[in-house]
């Protein structure tokens, strides 16, 4: 039977999806780019190495091979057993400990896997009452920072090494001579640690005149401050997003950059779960100037410049608040937003109609008055105790950061103790912190890195001690989570480099007993009610103290007076123009405020929206970029994209950086991510991005106006983005519908399959036809696009679990990133008149889709492998046998999903900036690489410290792949095999070896475990009772590229939007159900767009 080759179907089903402006513009360069297997020279050796050089290198290699052959015997290896057997330890069996990762004012309770004493994988604590085991990408990546070879490793006094004992003695003597604390100042980061509170209290009693300053460059605390003012007592709001039907987010990226985002994601997606067509679903409205993950997931999005946001909020308040609460000032504030009434009025109506089930949120960048306004709206909407609860919270007191800087400059501070943070890098630039810091006679600084705040000779400080801070996986401590529950931080490993904790420094300074951090935490736990050792043991075992959540504030009374006075202080700012741009400084999705700058996993993680790696950029909207003449007609050379660099001036301060044209950004607005452009950081972070803090002053912490852009006429800056890689060219890869359409036709996703399956047979045989009967289980995965918000936690979880290397900016630029799971972000433009299309480019909707190996049953990759390195097992996994792989890359060529990754270099053993250098010419640690290799051939040419430390984070259950090997998602094969082995060990001579979800023996994949939204579900599809079977039976289920008949084991649940019919941007998503309907739709307004495409 002859199989007719498939024409490349190019159906414009649904909206037009596009991933980058190049694709939308449909340039020839873009076509060239996507039509390649690995775009942009990824598969070529374009390095200017001459033939002569090549022959030279090769002949030397042959010489070496000759030398090596003489040693063709098995090297003698030693086994070193214990001299004394430790208790409760079996070599090879991983151990799990409960701990918690502190965040600004909260914490994430964790279970950390330790293999042979090395913490290697972080998971959320699934037993924690307020969590589901999900985490965020920063938590997942924190284990890499533990093994960072650039960590601060020694105590230093004025730059030269000193001992740990010396600093502890010095702190004690400093404390003794501090008197009543005059001239003493502590600069701390926010923390929720009960122990730190206790020590701080004790020290305040001892040194009543000492100043305490909490400083966060990006302070996420505004919501608490506003609620405390409005309700007259110190309370903290906690949002019950799962209870809300209508959510309006005003510049609040609660899915991405707010405090406790993974908790918000969990609750938000709970309100969006569809198990049947009658399930309710929440609706999200977003008002924002940047394009954030929250905006991406919203049903309606209003794009306004930052100077307009307060006006829109005020306008919304006019329509929500009772008329008695509205004063003239509010009307004045709201006036500029009148033009947006078409959007605001129906949105407000929806809020009011759902009173008690609606919620308004304000983001950290907004002024306190805006938060007070939001508090008033929520109060008036009856949200209190329904969709928002208030918990009692400790009062925040202390000196403000500018006051501390002033006190330093005035010479009032002799002793400055900095615990954590990096003020010299991230303080508002007008405070001139490095100089202020140098005014103190003695500076003691505890920091994780030797960075900008560490001692430098130019600062002329009398004495500065720099102390290495312990990682949280090496420390004893305690924290409170967002809801106030106490959780322990317990160490999984001794401090690798003698790290010291905050608690130790404080205790030593006050000469307090007990002084050891363990005893301090134990003592605090006693005060919290844990008297007995059993309680303590349970606390450490569970990872939290049950029932210790903060008390709910009893019937809080809203006080409108605070609001009125705060609003009086607000003034409307003029709308931005192209010569006076608005600037937004935002917390970067990966670097945070710069603290994760030296973490390679996070540097290489594509930003959820821009998909940029290793850099930040000056974000501009397409219209603004065009107006400024720096539109993205990027310089395409050698198939690489280069960007314009511009000079951005705000209030007389200037930075230069590359332009990134970001669809969906408000016009005349510049987005600047903080956390890059570090002057002093480790080998990973050096040279990444530009420092946006240089434009940030005390008055313009988050917004600035009046910025100008000067074109430098230099378009040579390369930005490494993954957004155009692996493009899917308009096939119905993502399928979505509106809620109403879904209710009418729940199986819409299946009918969106273009009715042109020209294949009457699969292209490739299905090995499972014969072997399926041998398999005990049949593995499969279901991904709910309605739950996935694109947070990228899964990507880092996978990287951590599966030893996925980072490849560096240059390699990402060549499309050689190694992530086994990626989050595809597609912008979508409604199809319609050209006006609408134009608008669509300006205000696109966007969808995200996790893409990983689909584990096709009739897999195209397997049939082209000449060495059987990729094959099927009888449980339905498409497996890679690395030791068989010879690196032909045929499989990747033949993979329709583009999920296979090739090791172009030995990324695990070579420094990323030396990839192209031969070992014959490299010198590492002062030794010729060849000599190093002869001494120890296993050792890569990484510097010794990097080599020793980078090995520690590897998962011993997964092969570390070498150069020339193809790899891809294995559905966490190691976890499956271990679970099967555990079942067999338990079964012994019984036949009960089948894993079952009911018994809890089916493992979770790393991505599934990390997903706070619960979007990824893995399981046994041959078990009719398993969750994955039930999900796959849902009507929304579809297979990506199903017309190829590859029978993927990974299926998707189509996305459903819930737009409001009364909104101006409401649009039915076009959903042709049959080819005929599709054709007739096509002959209409779509004709000019699709003509000449999709026809063979």
């Amino acid at each position: 039977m002859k199989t007719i080759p498939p024409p490349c179907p190019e159906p414009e089903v649904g909206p037009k999806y596009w991933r980058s402006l190049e694709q939308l513009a449909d340039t020839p360069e873009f076509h060239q780019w996507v039509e390649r297997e690995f775009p942009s020279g990824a598969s070529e050796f374009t390095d200017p190495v001459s033939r002569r050089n090549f022959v030279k290198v090769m002949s030397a290699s042959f010489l070496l091979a000759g030398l090596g052959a003489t040693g063709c015997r098995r090297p003698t290896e030693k086994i070193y057993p214990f001299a004394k057997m430790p208790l409760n330890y079996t070599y090879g069996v991983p151990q799990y400990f409960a701990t918690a990762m502190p965040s600004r004012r909260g914490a994430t309770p964790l279970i950390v896997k330790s293999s042979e004493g090395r913490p290697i994988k972080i998971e959320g604590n699934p037993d924690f009452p307020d969590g589901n085991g999900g985490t965020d990408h920063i938590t997942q990546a924190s284990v890499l920072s533990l093994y960072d070879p650039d960590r601060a490793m020694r105590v230093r006094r004025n730059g030269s090494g000193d001992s740990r004992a010396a600093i502890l003695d010095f702190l004690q003597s400093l404390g003794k001579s501090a008197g009543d604390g005059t001239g003493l100042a502590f600069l701390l980061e926010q923390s929720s640690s009960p122990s730190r509170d206790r020590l701080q209290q004790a020290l305040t009693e001892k040194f009543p005149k000492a100043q305490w300053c909490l400083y966060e460059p990006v302070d996420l605390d505004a919501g608490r401050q506003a609620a405390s003012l409005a309700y007259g007592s110190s309370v903290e709001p906690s949002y019950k997003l799962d209870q809300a039907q209508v959510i309006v987010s005003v510049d609040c990226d609660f899915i991405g950059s707010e405090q406790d985002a993974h908790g918000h994601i969990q609750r938000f997606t709970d309100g969006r779960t569809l198990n049947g067509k009658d399930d309710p679903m929440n609706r999200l409205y977003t008002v924002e100037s940047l394009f954030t993950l929250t905006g991406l997931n919203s049903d309606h999005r209003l794009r306004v410049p930052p100077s307009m946001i307060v006006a829109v909020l005020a306008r919304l308040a006019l329509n929500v608040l009772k008329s008695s609460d509205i004063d003239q000032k509010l009307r004045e504030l709201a006036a500029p937003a009148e033009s947006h009434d078409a959007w605001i009025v129906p949105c407000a109506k929806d809020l009011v109609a759902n009173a008690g089930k609606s919620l308004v949120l304000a983001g950290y960048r907004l002024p306190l008055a805006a938060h007070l306004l939001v508090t008033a709206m929520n109060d008036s909407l009856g949200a209190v105790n329904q969709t928002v609860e208030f918990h009692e919270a400790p009062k925040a007191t202390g000196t403000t950061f500018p006051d501390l800087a002033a006190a330093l400059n005035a010479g009032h501070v002799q002793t400055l103790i900095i615990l954590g943070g990096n003020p010299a890098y991230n303080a508002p630039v007008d405070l001139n912190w490095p100089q202020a810091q140098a005014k103190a006679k003695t500076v003691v600084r505890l920091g994780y890195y030797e960075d900008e705040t560490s001692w430098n000779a130019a600062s002329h400080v009398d004495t500065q001690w720099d102390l290495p801070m312990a990682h949280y996986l090496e420390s004893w401590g305690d924290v409170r989570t967002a809801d106030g529950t106490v959780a322990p931080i317990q160490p999984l490993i001794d401090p690798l480099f003698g790290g010291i904790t905050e608690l130790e420094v404080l205790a030593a300074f006050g000469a307090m007993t007990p002084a050891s951090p363990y005893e301090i935490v134990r003592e605090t736990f006693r005060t919290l009610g844990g008297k007995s050792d059993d309680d303590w043991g349970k606390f450490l075992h569970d990872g939290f103290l049950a029932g210790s959540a903060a008390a709910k504030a009893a019937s809080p009374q809203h006080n409108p007076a605070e609001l009125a006075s705060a609003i009086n202080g607000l003034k409307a700012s003029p709308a931005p123009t192209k010569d006076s741009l608005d600037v937004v400084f935002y917390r970067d999705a990966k670097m945070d405020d710069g603290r994760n700058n030296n973490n390679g996993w996070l540097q290489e993680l594509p930003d959820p929206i821009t998909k940029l790696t290793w850099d930040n950029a000056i974000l501009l909207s397409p219209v603004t970029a065009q107006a400024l003449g720096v539109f993205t007609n990027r310089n395409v050379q050698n198939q690489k994209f280069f960007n314009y660099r511009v000079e951005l001036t705000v209030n007389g301060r200037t930075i230069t950086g590359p332009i990134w044209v970001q669809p969906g950004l408000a016009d005349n607005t510049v987005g600047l991510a903080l956390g890059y452009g570090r002057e002093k950081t480790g080998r990973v972070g050096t040279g990444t991005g530009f420092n946006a803090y240089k434009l940030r002053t005390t008055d313009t912490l988050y917004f600035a106006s009046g910025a100008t852009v000067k074109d430098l006429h230099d378009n040579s800056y390369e930005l490494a983005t993954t957004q155009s890689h692996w493009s899917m060219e308009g096939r119905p890869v993502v399928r979505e519908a509106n809620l109403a359409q879904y209710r009418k036709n729940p199986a819409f996703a299946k009918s969106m399959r273009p009715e042109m399956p020209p294949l009457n047979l699969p292209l490739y045989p299905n090995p499972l036809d014969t072997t399926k009967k041998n398999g005990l289980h049949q593995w499969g995965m279901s991904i709910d696009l309605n739950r996935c918000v694109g947070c990228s936690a899964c990507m880092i979880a996978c990287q951590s679990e599966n030893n996925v290397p980072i490849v560096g900016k240059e390699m990402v630029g060549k499309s050689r990133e190694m992530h086994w799971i990626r989050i595809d972000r597609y912008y979508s433009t409604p199809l319609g008149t050209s006006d609408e299309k134009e608008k669509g480019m300006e205000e696109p909707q966007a969808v995200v889709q996790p893409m990983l190996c689909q584990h096709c049953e009739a897999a195209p990759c397997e049939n082209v492998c000449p060495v059987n390195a990729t094959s099927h097992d009888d449980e339905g996994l498409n497996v890679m046998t690395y030791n068989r792989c010879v690196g032909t890359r045929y499989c990747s060529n033949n993979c329709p999903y583009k999920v296979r990754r090739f090791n172009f270099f030995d990324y695990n053993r070579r420094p990323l900036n030396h990839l192209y250098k031969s070992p014959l010419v490299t010198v590492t640690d002062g030794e010729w690489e060849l000599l190093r290799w002869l001494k120890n051939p296993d050792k890569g040419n990484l510097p010794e410290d990097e080599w020793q430390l980078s090995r520690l984070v590897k998962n011993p259950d997964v092969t570390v792949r070498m150069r020339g090997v193809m790899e891809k998602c294995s559905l966490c094969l190691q976890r499956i095999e271990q679970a099967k082995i555990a079942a067999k060990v338990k079964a012994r001579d019984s036949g009960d070896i089948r894993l079952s979800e009911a018994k809890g023996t089916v493992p979770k994949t790393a991505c599934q475990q990390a997903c706070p939204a619960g979007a990824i579900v893995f399981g046994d599809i041959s078990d009719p009772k398993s969750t994955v079977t039930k999900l796959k039976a849902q009507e929304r289920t579809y297979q990506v590229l199903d017309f190829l008949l590859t029978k993927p084991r990974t299926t998707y649940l189509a996305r459903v939007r819930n737009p409001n019919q009364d909104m101006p941007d409401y649009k039915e998503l076009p959903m042709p159900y049959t080819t005929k309907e599709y054709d007739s739709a096509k002959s209409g307004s779509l004709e000019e767009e699709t003509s000449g495409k999709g026809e063979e």
Partner: protein
Amino acid sequence: MSDIFPKWTNRLPRNLIIGALLVGTAVTGGVTYYFTPKYTRVGYEPIQPVAFPHSVHVTQLGLDCRYCHNGVEKSWYSNIPATSVCMNCHNQVLKDDPRLAVVRESSATGQPIEWVQIHKMPDYVFFNHSVHVNRGISCVECHGHINHMDEVFHAKPLSMTFCLNCHRDPAMHVRPLDKITDLDWTVPHNTESDWKSQQLALGTKIVHDWHVQSLQNCSTCHR
């Protein structure tokens, strides 16, 4: 033309072919014999820091394998015992014997004894001891009759063929769980051919009752 090509050149093609065949056979034979684990691994018997005779401890004294290798049922790895385990007996027995000086020193200083590794899997093979010994595969299947060895040597090739032979036909290799560490045990039998049929009968029953799988997927061992 005979001026250019002397007569012997007529035989040259034949000789070349025969020669090539001979050389080819020799090379193939050499490689199959010398380059396989059967030659490179079997018989490897390094000198250990302590002359530990398994024959004495197991066969004469009747120690169970798991007294020392106590991780074997729980972990992928079968551990070499800690010095403290040796000293459980040897602080009483042969407490001044010079052959045990290294052990006593290790116990006193806390420094490990440096044993030389004999059995080693490549890094891309994920062998798991616990699942084998808990499911009817005796130590003897892979390690040979360690209970009779004075000094341990590599008895079986542990090549992929070796693994697959058993994985393809588990019935000929499984035994009751209480006989796992009884390395001399065989199914009761009279003659060699009787052993085969007896083992096959027992093995088939075990394979059926315990749901022993004949796992030959790549993913069974390579991850």
